């Protein structure tokens, strides 16, 4: 069969074609309907996508903005109207501000130092960083005990250390706090320093240094491998080691009254 036969055969094959019933107006009307339906579908799709993206992005954005600005609730320079009336809160701010003022001597690279009072204590679960969702927003107050966070930013990112001061009348924190390493050092002035460390494998995740004074007051400083104010910012080790925390806890220039 030659190519000419094929060519001729195809021509003859369409020779008896049925009459064409084609109306371009009908086709155009149908096409316009398809186009408007497609536009509506795209609009609905884009709207749905925006809602879904917003639903996922908004919480992330809020957490991140809070993480970037850990001192949002800082009362570094309290005004008369912002001055808390609760004596425990006032004391918490006062003591943590003193620690914040001394922090650059321990960690010269610290920037943006701020005070975040009355945030949740997470040392009860030292091995599990808390998240914003499951962290309580306020710390239950105990008589004679103040808790605060000192936020700062080092070369890695924003983080914070935790301060707990308990009077002799208050409930002192567990000085070993479940740490794998807990060692007590007697100081020349008769006070004691207890250093507790928690590790996950070879990584140091929590360090707690407690200074037990002669009058029974305990000053405990915690340093975590994550940002305890929001549970994020996980890093390989703690931002301030046991020596730095001990220097702060026993700093003679800080008065704890």
């Amino acid at each position, binding site marked *: 069969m030659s190519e000419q036969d094929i060519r001729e055969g195809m021509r003859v*094959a369409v020779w008896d074609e049925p009459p064409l019933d084609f109306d371009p107006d009908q086709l155009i009307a149908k096409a316009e309907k398809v186009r408007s339906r497609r536009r509506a579908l795209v609009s609905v799709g884009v709207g749905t996508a925006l809602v879904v993206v917003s639903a996922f992005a908004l919480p992330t954005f809020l957490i991140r903005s809070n993480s970037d600005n850990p001192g949002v609730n800082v009362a570094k320079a309290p005004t008369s109207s912002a001055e808390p009336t609760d004596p425990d809160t006032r004391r918490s701010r006062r003591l943590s501000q003193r620690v914040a003022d001394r922090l650059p001597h321990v960690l010269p690279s610290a920037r943006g130092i701020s005070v975040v009072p009355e945030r949740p204590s997470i040392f009860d679960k030292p091995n599990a960083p808390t998240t914003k969702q499951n962290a309580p927003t306020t710390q239950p107050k105990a008589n004679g005990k103040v808790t605060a966070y000192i936020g700062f930013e080092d070369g890695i990112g924003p983080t914070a250390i935790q301060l707990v001061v308990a009077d002799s009348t208050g409930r002192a924190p567990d000085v070993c706090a479940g740490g794998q390493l807990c060692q007590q050092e007697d100081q020349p002035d008769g006070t004691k320093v207890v250093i507790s460390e928690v590790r996950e494998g070879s990584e140091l995740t929590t360090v707690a240094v407690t200074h037990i004074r002669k009058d029974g007051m305990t000053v405990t400083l915690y340093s975590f491998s994550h940002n305890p104010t929001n549970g994020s910012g996980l890093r390989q080790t703690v931002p301030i080691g046991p020596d730095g925390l001990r220097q702060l806890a026993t700093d003679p220039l800080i008065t704890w009254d």
Partner: protein
Amino acid sequence: MRKADEQGFREFATSHAAALRRTAYLFCGDWHTAEDLMQASLMKMYLAWRRVHGMDNVNAYARKVLLRTWLDEKRRPWRRAEQHDGELPDHADATADPDLTSSRLWARELVHTALLQVPPRQRAVLVLRYFEDLSVAEVAVAMGCSEGTVKSQTARGLAALRAAVEKLDSSTAGRVAS
């Protein structure tokens, strides 16, 4: 769409609908499906007419759209061809002219039986080359492949068509063999 563009499309569709349907018939072997393919292709062209009508060769674009539409249709499971396993009884056609019957029957057999046994892409190449009289380069553009592929597909398509024709009954085969 602007009135002028719409009028341009209307003129194009009216003048090319029949030719597109013929090509579609040779692709699929059925006039009803061919009409559907033609309408679907023209609708696609209407939706893209604003950028299509400025092209140098709108005809080539229309052929490409038709080919893609047909290949897409073939891929859909509910469009798969029926399997005929029974024998239909023969009926005499009172309107048939015996003098013309021989050649038309041969052509119909060529299309309905032999050409439909050729794989779709090879069939498309044969139709575009021997019915539309396109060059190898033009077929390559319409198929979206290289000219070498067109040549090889043509050779394979011709071999497949000849093999299919061989299987037809002896009287038809005897006429077409040359």
